């Protein structure tokens, strides 16, 4: 007997919500970053679950794509955070508000 799709979706939604709250409430850039990763993986869970439900591989392929993009994004994002930290000795995003209009 298959696990109902709803379980997976509930898990995915829960992970996504945790990630969203993390992004919104945490001030440390690294933690925000991890929260973003959590959101991405929540979506991956949903993708794979739907893929399984339809008995097709498209969703799993898309999940792999998303992982590759996430890896690239981590490289760039971490580099930025590292440089910001070197200059300002802080990884707090509220300190970096240079783009205020």
């Amino acid at each position: 007997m298959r696990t109902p799709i709803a379980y997976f979706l509930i898990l995915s939604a829960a992970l996504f919500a945790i990630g969203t709250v993390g992004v919104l409430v945490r001030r440390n850039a690294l933690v925000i970053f991890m929260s973003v990763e959590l959101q991405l993986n929540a979506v991956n869970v949903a993708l794979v679950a739907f893929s399984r439900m339809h008995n097709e591989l498209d969703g799993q392929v898309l999940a792999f794509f998303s992982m590759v993009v996430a890896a690239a994004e981590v490289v760039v994002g971490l580099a930025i955070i590292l440089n910001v930290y070197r200059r300002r000795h802080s990884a707090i995003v509220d300190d970096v508000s240079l783009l205020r209009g």
Partner: protein
Amino acid sequence: MFDLVWLIPAVALAGAMANLFVGRKMGRLAGPLGTIAVGAGFVLGLLILFDLLSSPGEERTHVVRLYEWFAAGRFSVSAAFRVDPLSITMVLVVTGVGALIHAYAVGYMEHDPRPDRFFAYLNLFVFFMLVLVLADNYLLLYLGWEGVGLCSYLLIGYWGDRPAAASAAKKAFITTRIGDSAMLLGIVLIFVHFGSLEFGEVLGERAGQGIASEGAFTAISLLLLAGAVGKSAQLPLHVWLPDAMEGPTPVSALIHAATMVTAGVYLVVRSHVLFEQSDIALPVVLVIGLISAVYAALASIGQFDIKRALAYSTMSQIGFMFFAAGMGSYTGAMLLLVCHAFYKALLFLTAGNVMHGLHDETDLRRMGDLRREMPISAVWFSIGALSLAGIPPLAGFFAKDHIVNFASTSGRTAAYVVALVAAFLSALYISRPLFLAFFGSNRYEGRAHDAQWSMHAPLVVLAVGGVVAGLLLGLQAEGGVLERFLEPTLGAPEAAHLGLPEGVLVVIGSVVAIGAVALGWWIWASGRVDWEAFPRRQPELAGWLSNAFYVNTLYAWLVRIPGTDFSRSVRVVDDRVVDGTVNEVAEDVGRASRIAPILQSGFVRQYALVFLLGAGVLLLILGLRF
């Protein structure tokens, strides 16, 4: 030898290119190089002349085809030069007088920081002028015609940092352009009717045999004449010539006295076959020439700027040439053209000496008695002025008498009387700068000094030419030398002998010239006439003369002021409508951009919250739809 005729313009072009591209490195050598390039052309021209003279009269026309310039359908134009007595006469005048003026300019432009630029333009001018006179078809002629116009523009505006020079250059270019546009239309009409632009086709034997209607010939002739009138500064397109004197003096001598301004005469003489097919074309030439001659002579008397006085004198002399051509005396026109090149170049260059000696003073009222400190220049100016005045036996006497007397012998009594008046005025106006500058009382401050030897040497040759050119070329026993030389191209002039006998005419002409010079001496040099009081006593008349009958003012009323007003009104549209729209949009964007920054807090987490809310709203909408 004839096949090498292309070398004559080629060396001038080579001189121009050398000065243009490596002139900076040559420094002081630029001038001598330019002089040699033109002098070499003169030597080549002489060789070709001797070749021409050694063949019988009928065989003196050679067409040298270099290559096909371009072809479109049945329209084909080749770069071809025509060697015949007329073109070789012009080549010798252009290169001969041109080389002398180049040599003079080496000394005159001594203090110029960039002599190479000056000589590059001057050589380029000689090149285009040679193309103009050697061309074997109207399109190549037109190329040279526009080329000399360009060089004239560049050289009038040579001292373009002076606003007067810059605007004089523009005026010359734009005014002649009016004539040039008409001329281009004339050339197109020639092609429409003849199917060719080559002189051999258009001006050959076929021309008379009903190829086109008389109306077409009239249209072609008058359109070509409009070009000639513009280039040669005849009424009503003459206004640019006096202003052109803003250019360096050698330029005034070469372009605006000896060569370019005579291109119009050359065009009429070259195309005389076309003009003769129309009943009204030649009379129009005659009238324009005669009126210009009298008008410019009167205007010259009113000028106190020595160069402007000479400029009006040039216009008057060219008026005589047009007058001669209008009567069918093409050789008379050419004789005056050649003699005028000598003595007018001499006069201009001597005026250059005076300006050089007096620190660029051109006002005759602040000269006087210069013969004490500039004795050699005084001799040159006297020769030039007396030659122009028509004192026998100098060059001007033969040339002018030839023309004036022809009016009588061909039965044009009224024209003869007017021409005689013009001749009288010519002698009067040219004796004026002579006496005001070199005789009478001393009115300048400081000391003058005469020019260096390198500026006198070329004048020797010009002075000799101004004395003997008439004797050599124009002596009237059974037609002058030049007349017989040009006969294969221009035909024999009609041999009618109406009016007064030849001897009486010569006496009248001489008496008029001598009388006018004597009158000039009495007014301006004897000290018995208070000429300086004239503008005060007769302000009306003096105003009319010095402003050249207010033609410039008239043109300002007719063209310049309406044109300026129109431009202003266009500018209002540009400022208010075009710029206004753009500026209004820009200001609106600016206002908007002062509101937008409120949204930009710079806090990443706030942006993320907005993201989330946006996504929520989107989901809500999707959920409501399904």
